[in-house]
């Protein structure tokens, strides 16, 4: 486990050493600029520190898109309202810099946006499509599932749409209601042929997005909208990628393994902190890529701790936590000390006024950790 960590590139190690302070104030706490404490990396030699900027999530995404548009003349960014910068400001300044032929608005037609992107990508271009909210991605589901995912397979590798990347903001935001809060990642995890990537923070987002865009497979990239402004981190200014299908251990532990992704990790970290006060040592893993997911890392971790807890905002039944639970039960059955625990959203449509009850909160996670340890 330790060897694996040391083999990560320098910038990743710097990113993973960024730690929040422990005095959270808000119900749903986020890393804010003044809470950041960048640890000095112990190293024997004089290492050049990477130049970084304090950026929030939408600025990190913006930088990644800027890098791609600069480095590859055949890359395009399109979607509803991306021209003026987008409703979350991820595409600010791109149109002014690269022109309206490379950064352009589409009408209100998700199915056509995806179909168009697939066609563009199949001619060897990098098509970066934005869906304004993940809740609106469903008209495009057919295009993603039936066209994008199967293109390479059914043409015997004659054609492919690997240059396609679909970006969509997902997740609860406190007041989003039914159609601005959904986490639809499970629908896409059921489709062989595409990749699903979810970053947890600005530095992760820039690296993962650059990797997703350059990956020769179509990628659906979900960005936690709750963190667009609230998460702030030191993000390296240069061009770097983080590996796909590689999960990351955020904190080491020995009693229970926790697996999550995106904004949920913030809550899981808080639960881990509280659990450690009661003497429970938690190992926290950020899955980063949901399909194909880093089974080896999770299996190795569960083989060490003997317990697993998965947490996500999407409803419990049929969520991606179910896949992880089934898979780990298959491979680590004899090692498991307790059933795999899933702390997820309730099996209801995403509610309006009931959102606080629906959400998998820190206390629910903490309860589940304790129940698992005491099993």
């Amino acid at each position, binding site marked *: 486990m330790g060897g694996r960590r040391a083999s990560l590139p320098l910038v990743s190690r710097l990113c993973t050493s960024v730690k929040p302070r422990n005095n959270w104030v808000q119900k749903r706490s986020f890393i804010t600029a003044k809470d950041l404490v960048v640890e000095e990396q112990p190293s024997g030699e004089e290492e050049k520190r990477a130049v970084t900027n304090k950026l929030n999530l939408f600025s990190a995404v913006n930088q990644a898109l800027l890098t791609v548009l600069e480095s590859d003349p055949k890359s395009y960014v399109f979607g509803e*309202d991306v021209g003026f910068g987008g409703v979350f400001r991820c595409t600010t300044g791109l149109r002014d810099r690269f022109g309206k032929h490379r950064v352009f608005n589409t009408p209100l*037609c998700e199915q056509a946006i995806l179909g168009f992107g697939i066609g563009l990508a199949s001619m060897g271009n990098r098509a970066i499509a934005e869906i304004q909210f993940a809740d609106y991605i469903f008209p495009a589901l057919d295009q993603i599932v039936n066209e994008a995912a199967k293109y390479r397979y059914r043409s015997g590798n004659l054609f492919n749409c690997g240059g396609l990347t679909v970006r969509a903001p997902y997740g609860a935001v406190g*007041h989003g*209601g039914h159609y601005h809060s959904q986490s639809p990642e499970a629908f896409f995890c059921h489709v062989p042929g595409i990749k699903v990537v979810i970053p947890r923070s600005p530095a992760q987002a820039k690296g993962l997005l650059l990797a997703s865009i350059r990956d020769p497979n179509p990628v659906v990239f979900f960005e936690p909208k709750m963190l667009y402004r609230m998460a702030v981190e030191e993000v390296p200014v240069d061009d770097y990628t983080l590996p796909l299908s590689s999960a990351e251990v955020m904190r080491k532990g020995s009693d229970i393994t926790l697996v999550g992704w995106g904004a949920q990790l913030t809550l899981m970290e808080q639960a881990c902190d509280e659990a450690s006060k009661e003497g429970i040592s938690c190992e926290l893993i950020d899955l980063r890529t949901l399909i194909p997911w880093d089974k080896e890392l999770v299996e190795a971790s569960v083989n060490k701790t003997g317990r697993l807890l998965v947490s996500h905002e999407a409803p419990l039944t049929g969520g991606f936590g179910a896949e992880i639970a089934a898979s780990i039960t298959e491979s680590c059955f004899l090692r498991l000390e307790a059933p795999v625990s899933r702390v997820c959203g309730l099996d*209801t449509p995403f509610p*309006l006024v009931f959102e606080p*009850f629906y959400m998998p909160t820190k206390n629910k996670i903490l309860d589940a950790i304790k129940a698992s340890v005491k099993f």
Partner: protein
Amino acid sequence: MAVRQALRRAGGRLLATQGAMAPAALGVAGRGLSTSAEPITLEIPVPFKGHNVEPPSRTVETSAQELTEFFRTMFVMRRMEIAADSLYKSKFIRGFCHLYDGQEAVCVGMEAALNDKDCIITAYRDHCTHLGRGGTVLEVFAELMGRKDGCSLGKGGSMHMYNKKGGFYGGNGIVGAQTPLGAGLAFAQKYLKVEGVTLAMYGDGAANQGQLFEAMNISALWDLPVLYVCENNHYGMGTAEWRSAKSPEYYKRGDYVPGLKVDGMDCLAVKQAVKFAKEYALKNGPMVLEMDTYRYHGHSMSDPGSTYRTRDEISGVRQERDPIERIRKLLLSHEIATVAELKQIEKDAKKEVEDALSKAKESPSPDSEELFSNIYRKSYGAKSYGADRKEVVVTLP
């Protein structure tokens, strides 16, 4: 009650805001305001434009009663939307709130030509449409604030208001998804010989959704009595119509479906067009009605509404085409009411809205059991824990 029946007889279904309206109307009538049902003939200033259909005549028959009711109802709607604006800003309403002020003439004019056998389904800008179908201001406010007395029990919010008795099928969040539903409603009406039409309403942004064309094709193929009403307020969120549509002439986009372009800021033009279209649809099949209208607020409360259009444009429309002012001028020029009487109507309307607002604020939040109710017809059929993960809320039957 007697007043409501009288208004019904006046022609078409007029807005029936239960209870609060009757005393006001009686009081107003008592002051000498002419509420006679004598027909008044007027000429619609802006001509209709037809696509594959001969547009209706520009001469419309109305009455003092109808015009007064138009004025009163639109004023209540305007005050309600403005009150919703301040509620949102003081955080009583959270989430999304899409306001309809400026577009009132569309739903008020429509209601004058419809009855309760007709159905309406619309997108998320539905507060006033809900009122038109028989909802009350109290229900709207309570729903906006997520309280029990809301029309959807507080579970729907701004975008999801429904009224079963009035045949109002909502209130839909996903743009354009309501149009095929409208085709289905019309099929049911035709099959059950209800003699009603469905108005499937959508906006200029939704006009580019593929599902709208699928719905139009189905309804033309099967001659369904559905009217596709495009409320063209010229901006799909922040995108002007000419930037998102190759052809912003939405009434022509039905191609084989005939269309009519109507001045959506004129209640009487809307009433005439809907009356004409309803007769057409009951005999022949679908028609597209493009209502040329305008919204003063931004797309939603998080949109200032001035980054993609100039303030001059907004105030220009308000000065020249405001639907309430237009009716006010008619009422004054035809001596149906004096300035003082109109002021009284306005005062009563403001009071009605304020009373509804204070009552709505007292309404409690829905019970926590509502989180799990009505997902399926019978109980959910699984174990779901409450927020504390200890109490089992729903179990297998």
